[in-house]
């Protein structure tokens, strides 16, 4: 079983509410789900959709083929009717759309009318639509009732009741009228959880002891901000909306200097404003985690869409030379763990750590039976209380063999904690001399870098052991690459996926260069126009891919579109 349900409509019509509730019902019922939204940079009107993949095995990407299209407006039909599968159905409300479609694949359910008849508001029409989809799928309403109750728990009982009635009404109408509905669900398995990339990064931060989060709203990073803000009271986190992104990063650095774990995030335009602060973190050796949720650029670009155009920007951002780590999780699960690792390494090495995501990862929801949170690395690397107080003497930037200097907390003991954006001596005071400069560059950069590199895990290999075709990717393309490799199994294919990107992984733990060299064809798949990862690969290892498949229209790869492109390439060579 592998169905795709697409809900289309204008911004403000409730596409995402229907999507969220359906997804929750499916996962609660034990099915696997992958969903991704497609929305415009406007608040009302336009054309948005959300696509849910519902299956009895793990699914990690979207498909081009739609089984049930919930059309909240006419545009949804115009744009997506052609995507219907052979048995695919459109469910819509002819009265609301002002048009009755007399085709067998169209199921007319009077969403609005039913809602109003039941004494509900127009908005409750969406509950009817939800019920209708469940009816079409032949799913019973037990779990749906539970989910709806849960979602509305803050509402009045009569609102809850009305919604419960409406879901039944939609269900009944579809069951009764959709003779052509050939969908069949196997029994669901264990209940699943559903988590989106932004939630995962936020969760990773909270679980890593992030105590200070300052940011300025910017799509698609705002979801991290609001997740953390939602946990602020419970977990004792100060969240502050800064006046701009420059303030956001400088506040976070101030808080980190003060002794607490801090984070900020933005998308490309806001990150651009943080670049000077990033360099300040480098010079003052102040730990910080920075989320960069990419979207298509340059400049404002396509604010609500996806791209992977900023890998090298993230890598080289900041004036002067200093170490950093860059992680680009491919799944929400990786997002939790790599955000945690970012916090850990940021503090251990006193460096900035970047978590690079994009709108596709940020907004896509994945289902899991559970997530392993036991392996989180939570170590406090700061000198605190007694330990700090009892030191004979203290130099914030002491020259050490490892390059790591003791990280004290100002005010926490009799020792002064001094740091400076100018080149400084061990105590943190301004210097001009060449010798100290050399020593500090060695300490801050050259000694730390190899140590940090040992922390980096190799890329993930999935598929054949001795592949003839290797698909290479990084970040958010993990899910689609994985599914495409499965489809290509006849071709003896594998995926090589990089999520710990900088310091670039060595080949000691996994000789990925041997894997690549052993293959007949290597293809690097990226969501940008210039092949940023391919360029980094070449500069780091000298290796050049046989081909690059690049997409830069702001839309994610789907399983079909990517495997189509790969087939075409392989057929051509």
């Amino acid at each position: 079983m592998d169905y795709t349900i697409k809900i289309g409509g204008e911004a403000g019509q409730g596409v995402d509410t229907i999507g969220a509730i359906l997804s929750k019902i499916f996962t609660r019922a034990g099915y696997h789900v992958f969903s991704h939204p497609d929305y415009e940079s406007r608040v009302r009107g336009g054309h948005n959709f959300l696509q849910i993949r519902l299956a009895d095995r793990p699914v990690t990407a979207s498909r081009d083929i739609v089984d049930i299209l919930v059309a909240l407006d006419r545009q949804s039909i115009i744009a997506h009717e052609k995507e219907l599968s052979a048995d695919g159905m459109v469910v819509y409300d002819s009265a609301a759309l002002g048009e009755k479609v007399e085709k067998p694949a169209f199921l007319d359910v009077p969403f609005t009318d039913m809602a109003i008849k039941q004494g509900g508001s127009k908005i409750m029409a969406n509950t009817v639509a939800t019920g209708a989809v469940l009816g079409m799928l032949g799913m019973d309403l037990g779990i749906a009732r539970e989910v709806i109750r849960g979602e509305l728990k803050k509402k009045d009982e009569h609102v809850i009741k009305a919604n419960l009635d409406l879901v039944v009404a939609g269900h009944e109408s579809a069951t009764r009228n959709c003779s052509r509905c050939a969908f069949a669900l196997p029994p669901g398995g264990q209940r699943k959880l559903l988590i989106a990339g932004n939630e995962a990064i936020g969760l990773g931060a909270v679980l890593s002891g992030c105590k200070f989060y300052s940011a300025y709203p910017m799509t698609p990073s705002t979801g991290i901000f609001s997740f953390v803000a939602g946990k602020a009271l419970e977990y004792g986190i100060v969240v502050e909306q800064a006046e701009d992104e420059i303030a956001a990063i400088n506040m976070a650095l101030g808080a980190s200097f003060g002794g607490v774990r801090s984070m900020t995030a933005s998308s490309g335009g806001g990150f651009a404003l943080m670049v000077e602060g990033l360099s300040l973190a480098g010079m003052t050796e102040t730990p910080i985690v920075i989320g960069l949720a990419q979207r298509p650029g340059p400049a404002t670009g396509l604010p609500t869409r996806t791209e992977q155009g900023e890998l090298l920007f993230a890598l080289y951002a900041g004036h002067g030379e200093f170490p950093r780590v860059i992680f680009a999780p491919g799944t929400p699960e990786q997002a939790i763990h790599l955000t945690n690792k970012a916090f850990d390494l940021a503090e251990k090495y006193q460096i900035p750590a970047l978590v690079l995501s994009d709108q596709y990862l940020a907004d896509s929801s994945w289902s899991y039976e559970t997530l392993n949170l036991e392996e989180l690395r939570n170590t406090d690397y700061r000198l605190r209380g007694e330990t700090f107080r009892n030191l004979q003497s203290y130099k914030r930037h002491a020259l050490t063999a490892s390059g790591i200097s003791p990280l004290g907390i100002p005010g926490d003991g009799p020792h002064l904690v001094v740091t400076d954006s100018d080149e400084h001596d061990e105590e943190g005071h301004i210097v001009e001399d060449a010798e100290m400069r050399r020593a500090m560059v060695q300490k801050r950069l050259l000694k730390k870098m190899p140590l940090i590199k040992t922390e980096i895990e190799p890329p993930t290999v999935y598929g054949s052991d001795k592949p003839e075709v290797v698909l290479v990717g990084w970040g958010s393309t993990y899910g689609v690459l994985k599914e495409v490799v499965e489809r290509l199994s006849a071709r003896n294919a594998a995926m090589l996926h990089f999520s710990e990107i900088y310091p670039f992984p060595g080949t000691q733990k996994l000789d990925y260069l041997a894997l690549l060299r052993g293959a007949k064809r290597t293809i690097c798949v990226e969501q940008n126009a210039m092949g940023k990862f391919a360029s980094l690969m070449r500069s780091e290892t000298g290796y050049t891919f046989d081909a690059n498949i690049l997409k830069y229209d702001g839309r994610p790869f789907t399983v079909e579109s990517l495997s189509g492109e790969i087939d075409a390439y392989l057929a051509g060579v």
Partner: protein
Amino acid sequence: MHTLQEYEGRTPAWCPGCGNFGIRKAFQQTMVELDLAPHQFTIVSGIGQAGKFPHYVRCNTFNGLHGRSLPVATGLKLANHAMPVFVFCGDGDCYGEGGNHLLNAMRRNVNLTLFVHDNQIYGLTKGQASPTSLEGTVSNTQPFGALSQPFNPMVLAVAMDCSFVARGYVGDIDHLKELMKEAINHQGFSLLDIFQPCVTFNKVNTYDWYKKRCYPVESTYDPSDRVEAFRRAMEFGERIPLGVLYRNQRPVFEEKVPVLREKPLVRQEPLFPRVDGMLEEFY
């Protein structure tokens, strides 16, 4: 009781005769009188001659970027609001590059004290006009003379309802020291603008220039009247008022943040939350 020596930092790289020495002296005396040991407070500073200040005064120090000390200080104070945090900036630093942060620091009203070394010039970069430079100031980057109206920080601060607004002058160290104490003791965001002649690059706003014009506000002056304060703050010409020009009792930001009610963030435990149950909301 601490001694002045305890606050002796590195040897200043300022020019002989620079007004910055007076600020240092007044500040060191202030610390002695307030009985704050060097490790008990932190100075956040920017870049410029003023920005070097904390290197010359023993203390915890975050000497950050040009124009960005206020956000750093805000983050630091929210991490540890039990610790006094002082900000030392130049006029270019704070009123030029950092203008947006100044506006928002006043709106937030975090309990910080901001000291601006106002020499009406960019000192460290060798003499360009700053926001407080008089109109017409010619420099290597102002070939037509500064064409913008000079920035009056006192007027702005009153307009922003800044919690404490004062001006001092290094020509009167005792008065300056008293202002410093008041500014630090004030609960809320305090701005103390300090006239500090740049003997090398500012040939107009000299010790003499200030001496001729500056006068302390009369003892009957009521700094709680915002409109009167506005009127007084506008005075900048033949006569320039020194002293506390405006003061209010707005609630302090950190007192409004629920999670800071019990203790400073940096003292809160556990450092890392327990994970059980954390996933439940996602099912």
